[in-house]
């Protein structure tokens, strides 16, 4: 299982890029952290999920 934004998903073995595309994220407007480290945009395609990965996908929202 891979935990993405708090949700467990059965996507070990797939790439981050595939996941983001399938889920419908605008990759130009997000940032990704895997196991506490930033994943640079250039590394999305070669980042393969492993069982137990914890991933955060974030974007900007209104705030003070």
């Amino acid at each position: 299982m891979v935990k993405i934004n708090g949700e467990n998903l059965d996507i070990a073995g797939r790439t981050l890029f595939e996941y983001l595309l399938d889920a419908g994220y605008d990759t130009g407007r997000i940032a990704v952290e895997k196991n506490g480290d930033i994943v640079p945009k250039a590394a999305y395609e070669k980042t393969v999920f492993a069982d137990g990965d914890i991933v955060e996908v974030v974007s900007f929202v209104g705030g003070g």
Partner: protein
Amino acid sequence: MNNDKLIIGGHEFNSRFILGSGKYSLKLIEAAVKDAGAEIITLAVRRANTKEQENILDYIPKGVTLLPNTSGARDAKEAVRIARLAREMGCGNFVKVEIMRDMKYLLPDNQETIKATEILAGEGFVVMPYMYPDLNVARDLVSAGAAAVMPLASPIGSNKGLATKDFIQILVDEIDLPIIVDAGIGKPSQACEAMEMGAAAIMANTALATAGDLPMMASAFRQGIEAGRKAYLAGLGRVLTRGASASDPLTGFLRD
């Protein structure tokens, strides 16, 4: 006045009004920025949502500097993670460090804020820490590499004004960085007063978001901030401790 620039981390700004973007419609952002005359706008970082295709970045006019905050962070480590994620979105290297453990009063954790400031400044961020106005902490923030210091006027979102006025004045007098009054400023007169005291800029969000007419209030704040700045630069007239001082010539008239 034209040469009166606000300089933060080597970047020059003409406006001294930092605008928040929280708690109001994305559709009002453009008008708010325009009527505020703002050149810096704050943002928050949250888990992305694929269902809402609208992105706040589409609503912010070009040329406005983005100031992501680290809201949601409970310690320095979380603030650093949020700041790195914000920078990864490719919108510059400014960050407002905001760290809270207390969820009732939303008061900043000064000690964790110093730690995060030091780490992020070391990574090349322009760090603008939100803090409780304490001179010793402000000095530590300077040493840690902050580009400005952002003391709170009163609790976030309270619109209660300059509850910490005397302590902000100490920071203005003693700290050699822009002092930007953040949080709690509820009306233009309070923004004006902080600027008269020598604050370098004002950050406001809730005062606008909860106003009847947001863009009009943005414009009113702009005028209050500009008036206060001008008064500060002009130098306020002195206050008598007692007695009076006539404004008219004291020569005799209509009497012997």
